[in-house]
């Protein structure tokens, strides 16, 4: 490995035999996928912003998202979604811990933290299922919000944008949970120990943190602004 003291990249580094980014092929490709995925999500959220800016009236998020499970009729704006946000952040942290245990080749540690991360992801999905069900059936608002209509004084596109964007994000969470389960099982079976490194945990970890990152902006666009 050519040691670059000043951390800059020189043209000679690209002539083969060295790793200019100090990163494996798989990790780099995961990064490039995530960059493209970031643009997809950005386009969705900017479409949301454009339509919102073009509408003289819009739904008040504090009115739309004010329900809590087990607390029927209680007005708790931002309550439930804060819990969801916290669950997803924690789940992300657990997977970082799994990656770190992988660096020191601690198989048990990887499996332990991956299981916690999977539970967090599943809990987030459960919360989202509750929220969707609550909004679709509309138990506390009289009648429900669907992708084609809503009752919050905003254009119907409010419902469409909400379900498409949170649904697209939720599908990312869902597939992330599946990937996490596969990686966890493989780690448990010693696949990575035999391979000599836990890089697969890192790659899936990147994807998982990205899902958390996107949620920060979904939370911003739909619930805060």
């Amino acid at each position, binding site marked *: 490995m050519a040691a670059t003291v000043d*951390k*800059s*990249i020189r043209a000679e580094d690209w002539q083969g035999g060295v790793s*200019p*980014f*100090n*990163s*494996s092929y798989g990790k*780099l490709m995961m*990064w490039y996928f*995530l*960059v493209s995925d*970031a*643009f997809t999500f*950005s*386009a969705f959220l*900017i*479409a949301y*912003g*454009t*339509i*919102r*800016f*073009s*509408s*003289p009236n819009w739904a008040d998020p*504090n009115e739309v998202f004010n329900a809590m499970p087990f607390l029927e009729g209680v007005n708790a*704006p*931002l309550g439930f979604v*804060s819990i969801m*946000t*916290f669950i997803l*952040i*924690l789940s*992300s*942290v657990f997977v*970082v*811990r799994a990656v*770190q245990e*992988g*660096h*020191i*080749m601690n198989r048990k540690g990887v499996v332990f933290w991956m299981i916690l991360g999977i539970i967090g992801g599943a809990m987030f999905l459960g919360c989202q299922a509750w929220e969707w069900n609550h909004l679709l059936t509309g138990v506390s608002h009289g009648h429900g919000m669907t992708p084609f209509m809503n009752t919050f004084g905003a254009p119907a596109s409010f419902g469409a944008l909400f379900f498409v964007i949170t649904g697209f994000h939720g599908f990312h969470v869902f597939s992330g949970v599946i990937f996490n389960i596969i990686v966890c099982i493989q780690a448990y079976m010693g696949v990575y120990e035999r391979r*000599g*490194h*836990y*890089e697969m945990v890192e790659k899936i*970890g*990147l994807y998982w*943190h*990205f899902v*958390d*990152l996107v949620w*920060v*902006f979904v*939370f*911003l666009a739909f619930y*805060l*602004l």
Partner: protein
Amino acid sequence: MAHSLEHESYKTQVSAVWKATLWLTIITIVEVVAALVWIWYLYPEGGGPRMLLNSFFILASLLKAFFIVGEFMHVRYEKRALALTILGPTFFLIWFIVAFLWEGSEWQNNRIQWNAQPTEHLNRVIEHGHGHDDHGHDHKKGGDHGHSKDSHKKGGH
């Protein structure tokens, strides 16, 4: 690439991650508290300088993104060239956001004006015909000055 870090660097990295977790939690709590104080205590009737609150939310979210990308996704510890390769393209989003939100609010202006005086607009369309003039622009006069004066006289566009 077999990673085997020394114990010391393992320990500092673990504590860095928990520190980032603490920051993310604090920022999220502050965001929610700010939103609730705003709607329950400061402006229960609505209104207020929403722009101020929204700017705070956006900055806080960017700070959260910084912690997630930097610490959890490890970009802070990657080579600078890799970090730039990943983060560089996202700066295109600034123009993407500005252009589209600008367009959106322009669209809203048109809607509001249409709702205020739809017949005014219709008359203009009928007067000049649909074929070559569906935006109510006056092509017959020719030249920018004639156009703007003309549309101003007729109640604005």
